[in-house]
């Protein structure tokens, strides 16, 4: 019976077992192992780690940058909103002012127009009054002479005495006025 470890051949010439390492096999296995270990330890793994660290740093930096940009954007938005609100308030204020100004101007114009109208009507009144006075005066003179002429004609004598005639006429007119006032 052969065991695994024991040399397995009955042919005694050269005893070989796949479980018994040859010295050169151990040597070359160790060589490749330590070569590869050194390669990974000193070269490959530090490089891989470096690039991974760089990448995570970049990603972190990117996230940070994005957050910063977002914060800045939020601040800017706040500012713009505030400015917008201010502008709106300003516009409202200006509009209000304009409305008030308009009202004031309209009121002023109305006042002016009323004053003008009053002035015009006062002038017209005065003019009318003056004209009426003139008409009354001239009428008085006219009516006086006419009445005297008529009376002269009726009475047949000349009322040459001016003083009496004038007094007569005045009395008549005063009566007329009085009756007129009473008639009103």
């Amino acid at each position, binding site marked *: 019976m052969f065991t695994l470890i024991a040399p397995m051949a009955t042919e005694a010439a050269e005893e070989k077992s796949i479980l018994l*390492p040859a010295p*050169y096999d151990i040597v070359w296995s160790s060589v490749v192992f330590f070569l590869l270990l050194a390669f990974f330890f000193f070269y490959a793994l530090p490089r891989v780690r470096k690039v991974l660290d760089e990448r995570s740093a970049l990603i972190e930096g990117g996230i940070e940058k994005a957050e910063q940009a977002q914060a800045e954007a939020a601040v800017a938005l706040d500012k713009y909103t505030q400015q917008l609100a201010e502008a709106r308030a300003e516009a409202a204020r200006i509009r209000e002012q304009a409305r008030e100004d308009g009202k004031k101007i309209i009121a002023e114009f109305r006042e002016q127009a009323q004053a003008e109208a009053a002035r015009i009507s006062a002038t017209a009144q005065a003019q009318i009054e003056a004209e009426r006075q003139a008409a009354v005066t001239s009428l008085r003179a006219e009516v006086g002479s006419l009445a005297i002429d008529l009376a002269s004609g009726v009475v047949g004598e000349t009322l040459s005495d001016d003083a009496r005639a004038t007094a007569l006429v005045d009395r008549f007119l005063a009566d007329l006025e009085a009756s007129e006032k009473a008639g009103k």
Partner: protein
Amino acid sequence: MENELLNAVLPLLPRAEDGGGFHAPTLDEFFPPAILFEGTPFEINRIIMVRLIAVALLILLLWIGTRRMRVVPGRGQSVVELLFGFVRTNIGEEILGRKDGRRFLPLLTTIFFLVLVTNITGVIPLLNIAGSSIIGLPLVLALVAYVTFIYAGIKDRGGAFFKTALFPPGVPKPLYLLLTPIELLSTFILRPISLMLRLLMNMVVGHLLLVLCFAATDFFLFNASVDGGLRLFSVGTFAFGIFFTLFEILVAVLQAYIFTLLTAVYIQLAVAEEH
């Protein structure tokens, strides 16, 4: 050359018959003649040559792959990072955690890549034999794993490492009579041996299977003694050859993963406070 081991792993393997047309693969496959430095500790035969070529190619590829690494990776760099990341994340950090994973990462990475490339040469045309199919490499790697987990245990926990390893807490005292020899055997003797044999035997058997399939194909197709109808067997044996080639690729990756994973697990068990 016939032996019990070969018959055990390959019961269907035809015996070599002197004078017959078909030469079954034997374990002589793993004792090729020396090419260089015969008789010295630096003797190089075909398998050692394959091993050296595989490692040289690996270093060359990874050197190119990591020479100019960019923060934004290209295609090649992504593949390299995927491989490194697999060992770092799926083995190192998952088993050992962040801190110890980083501490033992060079070792784990070395074991993974070394086993992977020396395994995969078994299916690469012209090389056609796993660089890990002779015992030296599995032995050295198992020894490295063994030394490492004991070193890690002593460094992190001192004598408590041996105490918890040999006298698991929470067991009635008399049971230690039974338990301690078992623990001693399983932790300090069977672990490295199982690591070594698992890898070695997978590669040995895989190689023999492939040789068997393709030798049979060759035999059925070209040997003069084969009749016309029997030549059709070559189709079947060739199909098996292709199947086992794919299977060997899987085994190559799987064994590299298992070897590295178990090394990490052993380290983790050694540095863990409680089992």
